């Protein structure tokens, strides 16, 4: 890496710290949300610089895209109620606690990073890649070696969606009326592209950067775009209610795959020999669908309600 690379990385790191500060400390909440979105985009760039394109894809799609849309819609509801919401911080509040606590955390993290085994676990992963059923190390770790982590991650998403839906019904109308016909046209034009890109990312996951999380995030973002373009949520309790099982499909399939091994006298999440490849593909499809629908469910801000309206869309 040349001098230009070092300068670029230094500027990137400084910008990340500055944006993180802005996102947490800006008095104007809109300013904070925009800082958070830009932080997500620059973070994705940082992951690219660290040669981790999988995480960069997920960060850009979920961290900047889906979370940004969620925060903006939450902000919109705050603003319509009582004017522009701002937060005032008391200068110097609790510095005596936060500076030592922050320094201790930073020290502990530095120590942990220092003590990591020097080349990491990359060699071990590559050595057992042949037995994993896929050709891409990241997918092998996510859905075979450390499938338990993926199970828990999808569990967290499901828990968040259940919590949000249990808080009340989705607001009606769901989105503000757009003063332009361009957005509905864009939604209709682009939704097939979203589906295509999601399928492509899912298929690529077995041998290259991609997989269930980026694919689910792209599909979920497409569904959110359709919602903004005026489509009505399709899954309501009175009709199509059973389709809500897709929300928990990923978690259920991962759990079943993990327990099946135990029942058959093997370790938890030990796949039967020879079936790892197809099994991982099946799990990826289930997890991708669940992630897409879960992100969309989060964005509904409540359980989709029955107003008797008819509509197309996700």
């Amino acid at each position, binding site marked *: 890496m040349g001098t230009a690379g070092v300068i670029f990385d230094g500027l990137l790191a400084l910008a990340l710290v500055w944006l993180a500060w802005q996102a947490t400390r800006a008095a104007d909440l809109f300013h904070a949300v925009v800082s958070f979105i830009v932080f997500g985009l620059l973070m994705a760039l940082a992951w690219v610089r660290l040669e981790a394109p999988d995480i960069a894809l997920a960060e850009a799609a979920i961290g900047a895209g889906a979370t940004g849309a969620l925060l903006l819609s939450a902000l919109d509801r705050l603003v319509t109620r009582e004017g522009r919401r701002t937060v005032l911080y008391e200068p110097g509040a609790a510095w005596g606690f936060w500076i030592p606590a922050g320094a201790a955390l930073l020290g502990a993290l530095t120590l942990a990073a220092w003590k990591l085994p020097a080349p990491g676990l990359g060699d071990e992963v590559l050595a057992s890649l042949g037995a994993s059923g896929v050709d891409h190390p990241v997918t092998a770790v996510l859905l075979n070696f450390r499938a338990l982590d993926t199970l828990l991650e999808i569990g967290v998403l499901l828990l968040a969606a259940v919590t949000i839906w249990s808080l009340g019904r989705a607001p009606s109308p769901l989105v503000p009326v*757009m*003063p*332009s016909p*361009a*957005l509905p046209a*864009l939604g209709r*034009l*682009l939704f097939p*592209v979203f589906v295509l890109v999601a399928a492509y990312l899912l298929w690529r996951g077995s041998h290259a950067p991609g997989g269930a999380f980026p694919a689910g995030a792209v599909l979920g973002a497409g569904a959110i775009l359709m919602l903004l373009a005026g489509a009505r949520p399709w899954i309501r309790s009175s009709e199509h209610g059973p389709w809500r099982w897709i929300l928990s499909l990923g978690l259920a399939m991962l759990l079943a795959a993990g327990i099946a091994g135990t029942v058959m006298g093997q370790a938890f999440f030990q796949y039967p020999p020879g079936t790892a490849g197809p099994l991982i593909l099946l799990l990826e499809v289930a997890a991708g669908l669940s992630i897409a629908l879960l992100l969309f469910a989060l964005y509904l801000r409540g359980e989709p309600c029955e107003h008797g309206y008819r509509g197309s869309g996700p």
Partner: protein
Amino acid sequence: MSTAQWIGGLMVLAGIPFFLLGTLGLLRFPDVYTRLHALAKADNVGLGLVCIGLGIQSASVTLLLKLVLIWVLMLIASATAAGLIARTALARGLRPWGT
């Protein structure tokens, strides 16, 4: 360096001033409409030049087509977003500069 590398490099270099001028416009223009004008025009041309330049440099037709697809999607998204922002600003009563 081959001819394709030279042409690609020149196109990327030609794209950079568009980004610089677009950013200058965003910082210096007086209201939301003129700023959108600077961004929507300059970023699109600059991104197109950079994408096509990188595609030519890669010497792979697949990669060139993927980069061009990214550019076309950006064009559609950027035009729609600019239109939405401008119409929303107008609907909320922001007067264009000089009127």
